[in-house]
Every structure is written in C-alpha cells, then in structure tokens.
C-alpha cells in the first residue's frame, strides 16, 4: 500500500463511521417500531436524503473494501503488478454496482 491508497482507505473509514452508526440506528428504530417492508419503502421511495445518504455509504464502503482486498491479495498470494490494481478496481466497481442497485431499489419507485 502506498500513501495515496492509505489516505483513501483511512478517509473512507472515517467518513463511513458516522454513516454506519446512523445506519444501525435506523435498523434498530425500524425493528423496534415493527415496520413492515412496505412501511420502510414508503419512507425511502423518492427520498433524496436517504438516496444521497446510502449512495455516499456505498461509495465509501466500495473504496474502503477494494483497497483492503488489494492488501489481502498481495500479502496472502504475493500478487503484484498491474493486475493487482485491476483486481482492486474490479472489486470496487462490483461493490459499487451492487450497492447502487440496492439503493435504487429502495429509493426509486
């Protein structure tokens, strides 16, 4: 890992920490109130706030995890070179695509 990836991974972690706490709070709130899926979707659909919140969460998580996977792959398999960077990008884009799909499913009608 070089300094650029280090800064990106730490910054994405710091950015994600409060979002994660809010996310957990929302889960506890929805569970304790006994919300159904329809109740939740009624609140999230068309919501710019929740769309933006979870899009930011997905971007940070995809960045953080992709850099982590790159480190694990290089240490556990001695993987080096450009293909290691390609693995990181592929992992990040896959996670971002999955996340955006999930966000779209609960925000877009």
């Amino acid at each position, binding site marked *: *890992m070089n*300094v650029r990836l*280090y*800064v990106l991974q*730490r910054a994405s972690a710091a950015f994600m920490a409060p979002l994660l706490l809010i996310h957990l709070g929302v889960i506890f709130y929805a569970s304790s109130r006994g919300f159904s899926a329809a109740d939740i979707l009624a609140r999230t659909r068309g919501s710019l706030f929740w769309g933006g919140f979870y899009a930011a969460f997905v971007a940070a998580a995809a960045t953080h995890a992709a850099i982590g996977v790159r*480190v694990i792959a290089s*240490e*556990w398999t*001695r993987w*080096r070179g450009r293909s290691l960077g390609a693995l990181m990008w592929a992992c990040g884009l896959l996670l971002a695509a999955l996340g955006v799909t999930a966000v779209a499913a609960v925000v877009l009608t």
Partner: protein
Amino acid sequence: MGEIAVSLWRGKADGSYQVYRVPQRDNQTVLDVVTWVQRNVDPTLAYRFACRVGMCGSCAMTVNGRPRWTCRTHTAKVVKNGNLEIGPLANLPIIKDLACDLRPFFEKWQKARAVFSPGLTRKDAIERIMPTTAARLAADAAIECINCAVCYAACDTVRWNADYLGPAALNRAWTLVNDVRDTANPQRLAAVAAAGGCHACHSHQSCQQHCPNALNPTASIAGLKRHTMQAYLKGELE
C-alpha cells in the same frame, strides 16, 4: 548443575534440529551454549557473534521460538524442563546452521534511505542541537538500534510481504526525519511512502515486543505514516 538438551538447527533451509548435551553453568548465556558446542562437540557449527555484550547486534537467533540477542539471554531464563531450542532468525535466508544472510535486511535500510545525508562539511562549524526539541526527543527515543534484526525476524508483515522494508529500516528512517542536520527528507519520505513502505505495517507491535533495547519501531512507523500523510495532503508526495 545439570545438563541442557540443546536442539540446534543444522544445515540450510532444508536442515533439521540436532540435540546436543551441554553442561549448565551459572550466569551462562545462550551464546555461551552455542560456543560450547562449537568448541567441544562440532567445530563445523556456523554462527555469528562479535562483541558478546549486547552492542554489536550480531548474535541474534531464534530461542525457543522467539528472536533474542543470545549474548544477553541467560539460559536460566529460557531453559524449559532442561530443554533449549536454538535456530536461525526467521524471515532471512539461512546460510548455514545459525547464520543468516543479512543482505536483504541491510538492502532495505538503503532502500528506505535510512542513511544520514549531512548538509554541512568538515569546514563548517558543528551545528548546535537542542536536546529538548520535540524532533530531537523523537529521534533520541528511537536511536539506540543495534541492527540485530530481531524486529525483522519477529515481524508478521515481513513474513507476508517480501517488499516490506521492515521495522528496523523504518525506525532508522524516522530518526533521520527528525534530525535537523539531515538534508534528504523529501527523498526519504518518498521512499517510505511507496509500496512496501510504512503504510504496509499492520501495527502488530511484535517489533517493540521483542526489541532487546526496548525500542518501539511501531511508534516510529506511526510517526512516518503521519509525516507522509501530511506531505501527501500538502502535495509534496505523489
């Protein structure tokens, strides 16, 4: 006193442990045990030592599974039920028996630019260094390294990542980052911020756990992480 059943590594990487019976003495060090075997049983036993007083850093070996300076390790402290296992340092190629090839270790010192680059010549006046400045205190806290490679042998990241510069080289680089007389910090920060540099450290702290001089290379590496991150955010590093 009795005898110690000493298992010594013999051969290269594909070698094995062989057991020797060595008389136990008062105030006997692990290095004394190895020397006794070499002088009384098998003169072909290869190992390395020089000062015998914990200054030169030559005699580090793996004792009962952990790296130690053998000249300052008493057998009374490490012999378990009359047994003692002594092997070469981990994470370094074995030359023969207990002697390792330290070239990768010192090549990484060079790669980290962990070498003093003065800005003055002998014709200039000696620079006054205030011992109380924060930078000098940070350098002093890390300066007593004897290059024994115990931290390098103890490091998980070195074992996993062949490119990692290792705790000793980065610790030395940190002392120079804090040395106001040095002129090579831009190049040094670039060297330690590259792949395999300080950011590869996982802060497991095995280096500070095993350092015979009670140094804390993990803290030095954390300092390098802070310095390089600040330099990167200022646009001084790519």
